[in-house]
Every structure is written in C-alpha cells, then in structure tokens.
C-alpha cells in the first residue's frame, strides 16, 4: 500500500513536470500580451480567443499550416510508394549486395539534415523546384525512405512467405496479390511507417525553411518570424504552438497500439 502510494506520487510528479510547459503554452495562448508580460497568473484573467481567431483568419498564418500539411502528406505518399516495393524485395528476394545495401540505407540517417542543405538548395534553385511543396517533400524523403524501408521490411518479414506462394498458386498475379492480399496484412505497419514519416517531416525545420520562401512556407518558419515592430507577439505565438502540437497528438492517437513495434523497426 505504502509502495503504491509512493508510485502514484512519483507518477503524478513526473506527469506534472512534463505537462507544465505544455500547460503554460496553452495558458498563454488564451491571454493578451499585456497579461503575459505583466503578472504571473495560473489561469487567464481575461480569457480570449483572439489569438486563435487571428491565426484562422489571416492567410499568412493559416497557409503555413496548409503548406506544412501538403508537403507532409506528399512526403508520406512518396515514401510509402517507394518503400513498400523496396521493403518487399529486401524481405523476399536474395540479390547481390542486398545486406550491404540494406544497412547502407540506414546510414543515410546518420548525417544531420544540415549536411544536405547546400546541395539541395543549389540543385532545387537551378531546376526551378525552389519554394514548391514537392521540393520539401522530396528532400525529406532522403530521411524518411530509409527508415520506412527498415520498418516495413520488419513487418513484411512477419508475414510467412507461404502466403505469397499460396496466392500465386491460387492464380493471383503479383499486383493483384500485393494490393488485395498483402497490403491489408501489413496495414498496421503501413500506419506506423506513415506516422514516422509524419513525425520527421512535420517537425523538421531547417530544410523546410531553407527550401521555401513564400509559396510553400511551413508553419514553423512563420512562427520564427513574428517579431514585429511592437516586439514579440507572445499570445499569437503560443496559439500557433498549440495548433502545431495538435496534429501530432491526433496522429499518435491513431497508431498508439502499434508505435512500440514501429520503434523496434517492426521486429517484435
């Protein structure tokens, strides 16, 4: 009993500790700037939705979210389309250098995105991809595709090869088997992979910021440029911050039961 109480206490303290910054952000997003800068209040004295209204009514704000969502979705789609066949091949076939290639894929993740900043910037500028959604999506693919191949390979290897063979014996052609039988079997893996792509692409700032200027500017970039003549608009920034967290929470909620397996690259 004593032990249980202590556990509960520890757990509560821990939760409070990690939730305080998020609560503070939420708290600030409902305050006016003078209150934020004025006194320490645990609850907004003058509760207001103004900050949120500004974001949802001003295109220079909400287009940031739209841009981010567009290139994140593009990235997820491209990654899955590329990684699924690759992971299938790594799982099912033997070919020269397959093991080396498979490991080499993961080494791509070892370089920080900043390394690729210059080549991407120069290349995209010269081929006219600069400031487009697809530019950011493609740049992010360099990091998401290797991870996706690794995760999906784990999930695919969990499906017995005999299922594939049975389908071929039954007369299924490969594309039909892949779409009708195989994809539904690894759907949780696909969900987890999409989640990891989202995690990377939604949070990544450096590449997204550098490769865009106006048309495809992500929300994170907009947030860093809110220092106006009147100083920093704290309340507005907090509201934007809250709205940036929400999609992440939603996505995590959908894949919560499979995420652990994804972290283990599908090998549980």
């Amino acid at each position, binding site marked *: 009993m004593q032990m249980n109480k202590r556990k509960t206490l520890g757990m509560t303290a821990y939760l409070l500790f990690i939730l305080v910054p998020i609560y503070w952000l939420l708290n600030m997003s409902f305050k006016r700037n003078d209150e934020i800068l004025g006194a320490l209040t645990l609850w907004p004295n003058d509760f207001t939705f103004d900050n949120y209204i500004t974001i949802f009514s001003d295109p220079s704000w909400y287009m940031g979210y739209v841009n981010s969502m567009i290139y994140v979705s593009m990235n997820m789609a491209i990654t899955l389309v590329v990684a699924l066949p690759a992971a299938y091949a790594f799982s099912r076939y033997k070919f020269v250098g397959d093991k080396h290639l498979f490991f080499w894929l993961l080494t791509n993740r070892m370089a920080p995105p900043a390394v690729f900043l210059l080549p991407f910037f120069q290349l995209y500028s010269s081929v006219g991809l600069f400031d487009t959604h697809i530019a950011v999506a493609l740049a992010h693919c360099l990091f998401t595709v290797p991870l996706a191949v690794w995760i999906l390979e784990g999930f695919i290897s969990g499906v017995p090869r005999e299922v594939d063979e049975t389908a071929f014996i039954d007369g299924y052609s490969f594309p039909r088997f892949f779409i009708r*039988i195989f994809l539904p*079997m690894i759907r949780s893996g696909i969900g987890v992979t999409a989640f990891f792509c989202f995690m990377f692409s939604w949070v990544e700032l450096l590449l997204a910021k550098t490769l865009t200027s106006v048309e495809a500017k992500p929300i994170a970039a907009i947030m860093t440029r809110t220092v106006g003549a009147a100083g920093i608009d704290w309340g507005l920034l907090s509201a934007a911050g809250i709205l940036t967290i929400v999609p992440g929470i939603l996505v995590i909620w959908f894949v919560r039961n499979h995420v652990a397996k994804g972290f283990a690259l599908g090998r549980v």
Partner: protein
Amino acid sequence: MSLDLKNLGYEVEGEKYLTDVNLKLEPGSFNVLLGRTLAGKTSLMRLIAGLDRPTAGSIYMDGIDVTNIAVQKRNISMVYQQFINYPNLTVRENIASPLIIAKTKASEITRRVNETAAILQIEPFLDRYPLELSGGQQQRTSMARALVKDASIILFDEPLVNLDYKLREELRSELRDLFKERNAIAVYATTEPNEAMALGGVTTLLHEGRVIQTGLSTKVYRNPINIEAAKLFSEPAINLIPGRLSQNEVTFDDSVHFPLDDDLSKIPPGNYVFGVLPSHIGLVPNHDDDLEITMRMQLAEISGSETYMHVVNDHFNLVLQLSGVISYHIGDSIKVYLPTHKLFVFDQAGNTIQTPSQRIRGN
C-alpha cells in the same frame, strides 16, 4: 493428367537438395513422399508446383514440358504444414478466391464453396475470419481452398503435423476418402511411416535428395530395397544385428546361434546384417523356431497405448514394440523371443537379400 519427372536435380549455392529424381505419377493416384526432415520432400513439391525452378532435368504434364511455366498457369494447389490462409478475408472468401481469380460464375462459386465447406465440415464458420478459428479449422480452410478448384495436382506438405493426434487421424481418413472419386494426382509428404501406410496408395521413399524406392505402400513396406528403405519405413526403426551365416547356422556377434531354416539355407555363407521389426519380437514364444535371447532391460518408452522396450546385451541392442503399458525395472534380466522366420537379410553393402514376405511366397 499424368506427371512425369525426369532426372530432376535442384541445388542452391552448391548444396544439393535433389539429385536425379525420376518419377511417374499416374492420374487419380495418391502418392506419399516418405522421408526424414531435409530428405528433399518439400523441395520436390516446390519444383512440381513451379515455385522453384529445377537446376537439372525437366517436368512433363501430359507429355508437355512445363519446367519453365509460371506457377499461376500450372493448375495445381498446395496445402502447407503451417496453416496458411488470407487473414483479411473471411473463410468463405478464402475458399472462393481461386475461383474468383479464374472468373467462375457467381452461382457456380457459391455452389462449390458450400459443397467443399460441407465436405470439410467448416460450413458454420464461413463468415468468420481464419484467425478466429482453431488450428484444425484453419487447416480445413486451407484444404478447402486447395480442393475447391479442379486442380490436376494437389500437393500436401505435411499438412497434419501441427494438429493434435485425434484430429490428425480424423482428417487423414477424410482426406483419403476425398480423393476416391477425383482424377487428380495427390502428392502427400510425411515423415511418418504409419501415416504413409494409413494413406495407402503409392509410396516413394526419399533419402538425402534421392529416390530410394517407389511402389505400392504395402509392397514397399514388405520388400524394402535396402537397409535405408527398411529404416525409413519402420517406426520404431528396424532392429539391425550384424551376424554371420555359415553352412548350418547363423551367429549373431559370436554370442547367439541358431540353425538355418529352408529359406536361409538358400543364401550363400558370409557376413550379413539381419533385420527384425520391433513388433515381431515378443516376450513370450509364439512359434517353434523363435529364438530365445536373454537381454537386460534398459529403457521402456511409452507411446500411446504401446511400449517401446529397449533391451541390451553385451553385443547388440534391440527395440521391442509391445502393446499395452508395460513397466519393468531397469537392469532386469528378461528373455525375448525373436522369430527367425521373420528376419530381413541385408548384405554388407546394405542391399536386401531376403525379406520375410518373400519367404511366405517361397513356401
């Protein structure tokens, strides 16, 4: 449809899985591939199915070379040891899937799925998903999918191994009945001699990637071509005792002697290996020419309602297959009776010289 395998060989990265396999499977025949693990049973089935390409030889169906024809076009079906179904389709959709691919009419599909499900007794589960069923029902589902299309060749790769004993017996006898009216070639791989005997038909003995012997199950059982065949087709394995045959007697390891009978005297004198089936040795004499040997009790292995009794003396050991559960103290001295008229005789190279059944015919 007949199936003709000619000089089939299969090797992967220098490792030989099959060597020079020649087999002719007749339409409507039930063929059992009997061999230990790694004997090449699965490899051979995969070649027949077209899942792998042989590295030597060719496969003919009705005289047409199909060696390089894709698996989708071979009109075969296969049941694996693992329960393989499509987990995201219901049992009904699972069974119907080969028919849907073949663009069969909807009414025809319904009729055949129901019919097959009825035979395999899975009608009540048609709308469930395979993973909601027991192992036996899952395997019935995959069997139904294999049987629903009119495949010319149906391959069973140890389909009953992962099932419990009772269910195995039940499914095995059903399986045999299912093939009575069909004109398809059934190929059934197993490691168990008893299963091969129960299924009947033609048995092919595989050992280390080679075919040792092929023929009607009972014939192969009674007349194994060599020691390896005799060992493969007996469970527990046949007892082998090295011995010498002279002008008037047989000597086992200089310790046990018995006079020749009419049949044994036809064999030229020399060194031989004598075989006797564990079920033929008894604890009481039941024939005049039974040989009494005093042995020491070593181990009693109880298998179902049978006891496998391992006994030793200073020169050789024997296994007895006795009915009923019998217990003895280890180290006890017991007398066993070995029927000399039921001996297999092999030469030093392992080839069969004489089998008990040949003697019966001889008399």
